[in-house]
């Protein structure tokens, strides 16, 4: 019986969370704006809710627990092999439909980069290939919110946009000194 109560409560949790962002009238208005749209808005996850409520600026006292929860969500590739196949990683990095990294980051030899995120030009030559840098790069791609709460960068691993192995491929594309990313000039010249 107790299990049943918990199951019912668990099922209601996303609904309850959305309720705390949108009032009853607002919920109805969102529901009247398209089923799939309403689904996305009314099933906001707990962390999305926090970012929404604080308009993307988490208060200092909420940040440590937020970061800890984001960090805990990270799954690592088999055998903690953070660097995969850089060529596969390049195909992912430079694909608009896939990871679309170049749209925001400068440094790709294949696509002109944007400036929403920091420049990654010659990332592997700048940062080296230490285990710490590999892990950090992997974690930022897997879940950018574990370092930068509520930032615009997609949480590729958490949201299932890339598998851990695909993320390791992108890490290799950025870090491997033999990768095109580090041997060829970035498209668009120096900034």
């Amino acid at each position, binding site marked *: 019986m107790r299990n049943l109560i918990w199951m019912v409560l668990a099922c209601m949790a996303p609904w309850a969370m959305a309720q705390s*962002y*949108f009032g009853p*009238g*607002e919920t109805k*208005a*969102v529901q*009247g*704006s*398209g089923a*799939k*749209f309403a*689904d*996305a*808005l009314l099933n*906001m996850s707990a962390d*999305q809710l926090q*970012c*929404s409520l604080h*308009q*993307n600026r988490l208060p200092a006292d909420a940040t440590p627990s937020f970061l800890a929860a984001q960090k805990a969500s990270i799954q690592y590739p088999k055998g903690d092999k953070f660097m995969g196949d850089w060529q596969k990683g390049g195909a992912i990095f430079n694909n608009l439909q896939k990871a679309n990294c170049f*749209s*925001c980051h400068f440094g790709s030899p294949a696509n002109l980069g*944007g*400036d*929403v995120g920091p420049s990654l030009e010659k990332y592997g030559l700048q940062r080296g290939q230490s285990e710490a840098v590999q892990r950090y790069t992997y974690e930022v791609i897997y879940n950018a*919110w574990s370092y930068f709460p*509520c930032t*615009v960068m*997609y*949480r590729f691993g958490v*949201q*299932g*946009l890339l598998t851990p192995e695909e993320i390791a491929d992108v890490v290799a594309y950025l870090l491997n000194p033999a990768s095109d990313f580090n041997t060829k000039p970035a498209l668009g010249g120096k900034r």
Partner: protein
Amino acid sequence: MRWTGLALLLLSLLGVLAQSVPEDPRDEAKRQKQLLLQTSGILPSDLIVEQGKDLFYTKRGPRGVSLEGCDFGLGAGVLQGASVQLPRYFADTGKVEDLDSRIRTCMTQLQGFKPEEVKRSEVVPLAFFIAAQSDGLPIQVRIAAPAEREMYELGQKLFYARSGARDMGCATCHVSYVNRRSGVLPFSDVLGKDASMSHWPAYRYSNDQAWTMEDRIRACYGNLGHPQPDFYSPVPIALQLFMAYQANQAKAELPGFLR
């Protein structure tokens, strides 16, 4: 339509020239607009306005009436200054409506079209024509009726909401990363300097596209793989009321002319 062809040819030539000199797309759009007016004497958006004018005054629909009897907020048939006061609450429908949804209301209730017969290819030119009658006027939306307050608050929440597989949210780009570029164009300062609601509906010359703000909002979601809100639904209306209120007093350029 011959004009459109000529205009497009000119545009593509100008586009090639423009690419060699990176500059603010806002200044670039102003210059291109000026050049087009000097060379061909007409803008592609003027043609869309004319098309909307024809649709507006023609007796159409099952009831065979024009849209002259439609009240866009300032009384039946009063168009000047109407679109800069939208979205607003309409007592006859009991709803807050934007330009798109009010056009649809009149096409269904006045002209007798069925909702599914209301085509975007007619609503958009009509919106261009009606908006053009407010060119140069300041944006003046009010938050007075309870329904307007509710919609404003919903719009604000939607603007800052994070949702979907890419944690999408309007403010994430259009507040936090204003003027930064993802792709070709910098993110506009929707709530601030750009007062985006002051120049929509707009014509985008880089891809010969005529859009209302409903189209624009839907594209924002769609481009990020987020499910889109339906046309004429509360979500795009709420977002517009929130954005328009932030743009109050900004001088309208209608229809807008953008890159």
